[in-house]
């Protein structure tokens, strides 16, 4: 087998999964080594992947595999997150049950994501899509209990999306007689516009379920909150990007020529904007760290969808950049929260506090990640968000700018809540014995990803170059001097310009802040409880004096009227109605077997009567 070929690549990815599963029964260390080796080797193989396409005939269908610059960029995201995820799992999962199944499913999920990306035809894409859904479902329910419920929810949403995709694939195949995306795109243009609209609608629906776009986001908070932390990083960071990948493919490879393309994209951009705004508000309300991050994920994916749907070169660039960066910093956050959970067993923001001295590296990771998330220079998040704003303004979407800016600013609130509740405040006595997580398996992935946010912030060109080639593949006019489109960046983004200036300022600021805080920390005077008097009472030892409960109560009170009318209520209403209807229907199940015979006979009579009347 050709070592640079995609079949070899996929064989390594899938084979490694099964090998790791089998080796689990030999020795734990062997399993870990193979798992890490699999993801690292497949990540390395990405660089040497050849350009040839491969066809396999299966049951009368031809499955075609091949790489495109567009898919290669997403494969890069997957590879970038897969290695830290597997590394982080080693210690984290040591405590959990059924580790063999965990690694099998994790590696299969990763391999299936590569499979989706390297499918050149719709059928193999669907097959890998389903493999990914199944394995990620199994990972979601890994913990059992509540996780099962969340997993079933995830699976139901995914199944709805998958059926929508399958439905359109069948029709597209019927139309074009070929499953290749190129051929499909060619014959798609010839169809009647309404048909095009319907097909694009079902496809976009199917893919946006995975991306957690509102109103299809219902599964996301539960599934993210309940799945094991290392996997959640991959889940939110890379797996949801498969939805973005699919949507981009549909919008710009298949649907672009349709007369309905523009309105649909406009609508999608609005859906993204609404998603980001509402999910941000939701995130502020959360008291569970993982749920907070889950809503934050939904919000960030909303931004990506805005950029993706606008369809200007700059906005696409922004979307793909945020797609990468969101993966990185959300993985960092989930890792850090996972690390806290690993040491304390808690994710509840009301119970955690004052861990900064106990877990400084996790604190640093969270700090870096939220700086990136809140789009403060010099870290990577800033670049993407700036590009997005600029593209929005350039394409005269002022209202969307306001929405995006609002949710971006509001995201400060939840990230502050996250870092404050977990790390700041008075240290609790019960956390006295909490130690920082082990360096190699848990700190290293977090720090490596933190470095990535830093590097991409200073040298965005590293990421923008593959994005440019991906966009060129999708047919966007990327000129050599397209950076002049942006006020901020010039060509390739790494010349001396405003960015560098900002970077320098940011670095200086950060350094100064660090030095200052270190200095301050040394000078910190530890206040004994005797020093503080509340209503003349001397508080006893161990009394908690900082509260992170009801953190944003006034704010929540203000936004509650908006949120109470959210789409969630509608979905709940539909669920309730269905269950009530089912409750009503069960009256026909009398339990007396003879009644069923009566039903059959009555139906038969009815059919005969109707038949004779009709004929």
């Amino acid at each position, binding site marked *: 087998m050709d070592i640079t070929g995609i079949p070899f690549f996929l064989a390594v990815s899938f084979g490694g999964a099964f090998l790791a599963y089998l080796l689990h029964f030999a020795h734990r260390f062997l399993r870990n080594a193979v798992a890490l080796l699999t993801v690292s080797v497949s990540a390395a193989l990405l660089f040497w992947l050849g350009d040839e396409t491969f066809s396999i005939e299966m049951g009368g269908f031809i499955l075609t595999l091949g790489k495109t610059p567009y898919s290669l960029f997403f494969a890069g995201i997957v590879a970038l997150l897969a290695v830290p995820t597997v590394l982080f799992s080693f210690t984290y999962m040591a405590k959990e049950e059924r580790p063999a199944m965990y690694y099998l499913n994790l590696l299969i999920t990763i391999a299936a994501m590569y499979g989706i990306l390297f499918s050149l035809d719709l059928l193999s894409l669907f097959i890998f899509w389903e493999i990914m859904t199944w394995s990620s479902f199994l990972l979601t329910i890994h913990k059992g209990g509540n996780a099962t419920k969340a997993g079933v929810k995830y699976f139901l949403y995914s199944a709805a999306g998958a059926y929508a995709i399958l439905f359109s694939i069948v029709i597209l195949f019927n139309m074009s007689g070929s499953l290749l995306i190129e051929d499909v795109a060619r014959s798609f243009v010839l169809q009647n516009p309404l048909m095009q609209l319907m097909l694009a609608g079902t496809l976009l629906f199917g893919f946006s379920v995975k991306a957690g776009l509102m109103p299809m986001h219902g599964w996301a908070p539960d599934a993210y909150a309940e799945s094991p932390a290392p996997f959640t990083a991959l889940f939110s960071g890379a797996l949801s990007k498969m939805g973005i990948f699919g949507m981009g493919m549909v919008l710009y490879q298949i649907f672009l020529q349709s007369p309905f393309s523009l309105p649909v994209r406009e609508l999608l951009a609005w859906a993204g904007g609404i998603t980001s705004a509402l999910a941000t508000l939701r995130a502020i309300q959360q008291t569970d760290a993982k749920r907070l991050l889950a809503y934050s994920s939904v919000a960030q994916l909303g931004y990506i969808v805005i950029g993706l749907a606008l369809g200007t070169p700059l906005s696409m660039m922004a979307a793909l950049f945020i797609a990468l960066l969101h993966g990185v910093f959300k993985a960092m956050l989930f890792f850090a929260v996972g690390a806290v959970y690993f040491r304390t067993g808690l994710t509840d923001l009301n119970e955690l506090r004052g861990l900064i001295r106990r877990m400084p590296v996790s604190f640093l990771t969270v700090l870096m990640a939220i700086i990136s998330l809140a789009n403060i220079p010099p870290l990577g998040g800033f670049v993407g968000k700036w590009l997005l704003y600029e593209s929005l303004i350039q394409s005269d979407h002022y209202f969307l700018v306001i929405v995006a800016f609002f949710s971006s600013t509001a995201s400060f609130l939840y990230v502050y809540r996250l870092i404050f509740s977990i790390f700041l405040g008075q240290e609790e006595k019960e956390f006295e014995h909490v130690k920082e997580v082990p360096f190699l398996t848990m700190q290293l992935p977090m720090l490596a990803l933190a470095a990535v946010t830093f590097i991409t912030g200073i040298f965005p060109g590293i990421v923008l170059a593959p994005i440019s080639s991906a966009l060129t593949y999708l047919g966007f006019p990327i000129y050599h001097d397209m950076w002049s489109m942006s006020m901020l960046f010039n060509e390739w983004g790494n010349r001396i310009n405003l960015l560098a200036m900002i970077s320098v300022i940011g670095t200086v600021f950060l350094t100064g802040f660090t030095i200052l805080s270190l200095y301050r920390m040394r000078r910190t005077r530890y206040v004994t409880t005797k020093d503080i008097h509340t209503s003349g009472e001397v508080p006893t030892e161990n009394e908690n004096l900082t509260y992170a409960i009801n953190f944003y109560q006034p704010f929540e009170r203000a936004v509650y009227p908006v949120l109470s009318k959210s789409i969630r209520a509608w979905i709940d209403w539909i669920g309730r109605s269905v269950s009530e209807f089912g409750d009503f229907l*069960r009256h026909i199940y009398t*339990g007396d*077997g003879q009644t069923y*015979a009566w039903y059959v006979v009555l139906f038969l009579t009815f059919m005969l009567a109707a038949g004779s009347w009709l004929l």
Partner: protein
Amino acid sequence: MIYYIVSIIVMLIGLYAVLMKKNLIKIVVGLSLIDSGTHLLLVAIGFIKGGTAPIYSEPGLTADAMVDPVPQALVLTAIVIGVAVTAVALAMVIRIYAQHKTLDIRKIRSLKW
């Protein structure tokens, strides 16, 4: 023609037992009556006046002088399936009796939910 009528009557008698009888064994009896009626109906449809059995048992027989073999083959298998179904149904009846100590279908309501 009388064959048709009689077989339909037998089927209806069986159906009546299924609908109205409260004893489980009686219901199974009704099912087997429906079976019998159907078998007779099918074979009667394949009958041809003046035809012989579709077996070339002696020389000189031609295809024109034979009854239709297809319904017979169908009924042959249907009878065997019928006994299997009856056996399974009666096994269930035995099981239900062990569980509920009654064969009255009105008193067996564990399917109610």
